């Protein structure tokens, strides 16, 4: 199994520099990072990748068995770290990938210099018994699945081979509208369930590497109290609230986001 092509791994920036690894969340692919990458590349080795099933990852590597839970994705992150062998990385996980970072760092802390949890949520579903408010109910997630079904976003069985089968000609994919978020509907459904139905609250306490929790000032998906919860559960972690609004600060406030990542990564040297 070629991990690099399976996950469409791209390494850029300063050779020998501290390594910043950027992991995209549910919805789109590594292109989501493109506005923060130029700033980070000036100082760091930057590692980008697509989760299997997203972007230009190898779709044939996807199986419901492996990717219907967080573990398959966590295994992939650890395999990429091993394969690149660049030493401990600063792992920046957006949204659901923040929790993948938490689980990966709990299993192999030696792979990680630190974690940046960007707009994280350890559990999207409310848990009134524990006094936890994730912001959503299981019915809301069903509604999301309906939205996915109603919008295939440029995905069609006929186009998939063009996008996936020409890694040497990425412009073919680039020209397709919405291709950044084009996902096989079957895979999108499974990933949506992993993202929104996982509960990783208990795993937060396992993190023993330096951690920065970066939340947005107004985020419809991960409200401020969730960020505060994450920070409280991870010993020694720091919480910053970005001026950025929405759930994707790397797009809505790329410079601020890049600076927050860079400042944290510098403290780890």
């Amino acid at each position: 199994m070629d991990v690099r092509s399976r996950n469409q791994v791209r390494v850029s920036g300063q050779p020998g520099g501290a390594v910043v690894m950027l992991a995209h969340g549910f919805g789109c692919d590594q292109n989501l990072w493109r506005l923060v990458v130029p700033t980070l590349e000036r100082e760091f080795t930057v590692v980008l990748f697509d989760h299997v099933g997203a972007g230009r990852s190898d779709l044939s590597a996807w199986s419901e068995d492996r990717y219907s839970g967080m573990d398959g994705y966590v295994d992939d992150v650890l395999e990429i770290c091993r394969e690149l062998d660049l030493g401990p990385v600063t792992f920046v996980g957006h949204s659901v990938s923040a929790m993948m970072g938490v689980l990966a760092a709990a299993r192999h802390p030696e792979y990680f210099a630190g974690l940046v949890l960007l707009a994280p949520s350890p559990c999207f579903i409310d848990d009134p018994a524990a006094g936890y408010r994730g912001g959503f109910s299981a019915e809301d997630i069903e509604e999301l699945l309906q939205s996915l079904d109603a919008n295939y976003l440029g995905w069609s069985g006929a186009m998939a081979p063009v996008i996936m089968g020409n890694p040497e000609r990425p412009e073919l994919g680039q020209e397709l509208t919405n291709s950044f978020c084009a996902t096989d509907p079957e895979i999108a459904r499974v990933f949506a369930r992993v993202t929104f139905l996982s509960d990783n609250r208990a795993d937060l306490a396992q993190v023993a590497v330096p951690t920065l929790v970066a939340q947005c000032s107004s985020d419809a998906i991960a409200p401020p109290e969730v960020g505060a919860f994450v920070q409280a559960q991870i010993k020694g972690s720091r919480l910053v609230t970005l001026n950025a609004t929405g759930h994707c600060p790397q797009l809505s406030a790329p410079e601020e986001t890049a600076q927050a990542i860079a400042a944290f990564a510098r403290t780890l040297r």
Partner: protein
Amino acid sequence: MCRNDGDQGCGPDPGQPPDDDRTFAALLEDSVEDLYENAPCGYLSTLLDGQIAKVNTTLLDWLGYKRAELVGRRKFSDLLTTGGRLYHETHFAPLLRMQGKISGIALELRAADGSRMPVLVTSTVKSGSDGQPLLIRTTVFDARDRRAYEQELLRARQEAERERERLQQLATTLQRTLLPPAVGNVPGLDVAAYYHIASTDEVGGDFYDLFPLAAGTWGLFLGDVCGKGTEAAAVTSLARYTLRAAAVYDPDPAAVLSNLNTVLNHEYNGTDPRFCTVIFGLLTPDGDQGGFRIVLASGGHPPALLLRADGTADYLPTPGGQLIGVVPDADIATITFRLDPGDTLLLHTDGLTEAHTAVRGERYGDEALLDFVRALAPTTAQGTITAVRDLLGTLGTGVDDDTALLAVHVPRADGEEQQRARGTPARGAPPPAPSSR
């Protein structure tokens, strides 16, 4: 449109009175402001963070909000259902940021009274003179009828899928009724059969049976009706009970097939000829050593295979036998031979030999099957069926027609079965010469 207003060499049409003033008078009432407010679609302008800055009357009316309730107070995503909001944050907003536009997204808006309105949303990012994004312009189209139509399509698709399942179940059930629930338990004979279904949508036309006749003798047959589906199933059913009844009346295999030929000719004479290929066998216990004397009659059917105890195998040729049901007096070919302890007789339909192989355009073929069973012999009835079933599995979708298999084998004396020694001296018996009637 040619306006009668100047010197562009576009004079008034001589045949048409100049009444443009009247025609366009109505348009004068259509101010830009009115066009915005009462357009046939909803308009919405938001700041980059989604804060609603401007909204038109059409959208306010659709949703039952007052302007002051939305402008400066609510975000666009606040108007969405919760699931829609998740979708907006994970797909819509990121794509809009990256591409500067996104179109035709199906969402549901929540009206002031809590009802939901299906809409199609298109947004573009408006940039300032410095190229920096300033605000987002959104048009909202009423998709109530469209969504109802789509749901109707979805419902129809689900119903079609259910119907297809029902049809498959029906076909499978019908198929099963055309085959014996279990082939007979014949003293001194080991029997195995298999039916390979190529398509679950259609009833295939292959059939077989093994049944007792008078005085310790047994009849067996295996056949293939031309065609598929319910029409073929009717012929299969007719062929099955005719063969069994005819064998009671006169068990001579050639006579049995002649009677079937007559019945099919009577039933389907004229416009809609129906025919089949059949091989019919009469098994009579022979001698004290175990073993059977077998008379096989064939009407246009692929020859049976004999896998001998000594490890050799050959076709049992029955040339000259004609299709059953085509002509009034079909030629039937017969062959008589012994099935000794350790021997296996295999009957099959041509779904196997006609299967497409991985080599483009090529069929599996009689030669390949002969090589296959030669490598198999000596074996048992179940051993033969299992091996050929695996072969069908290997050919996979290349097998596009149903395939029936029936194997009978005379077990050797106790304990010998396991040896399956290839080194046993060959009896050297060539296949008996065929006779024709």
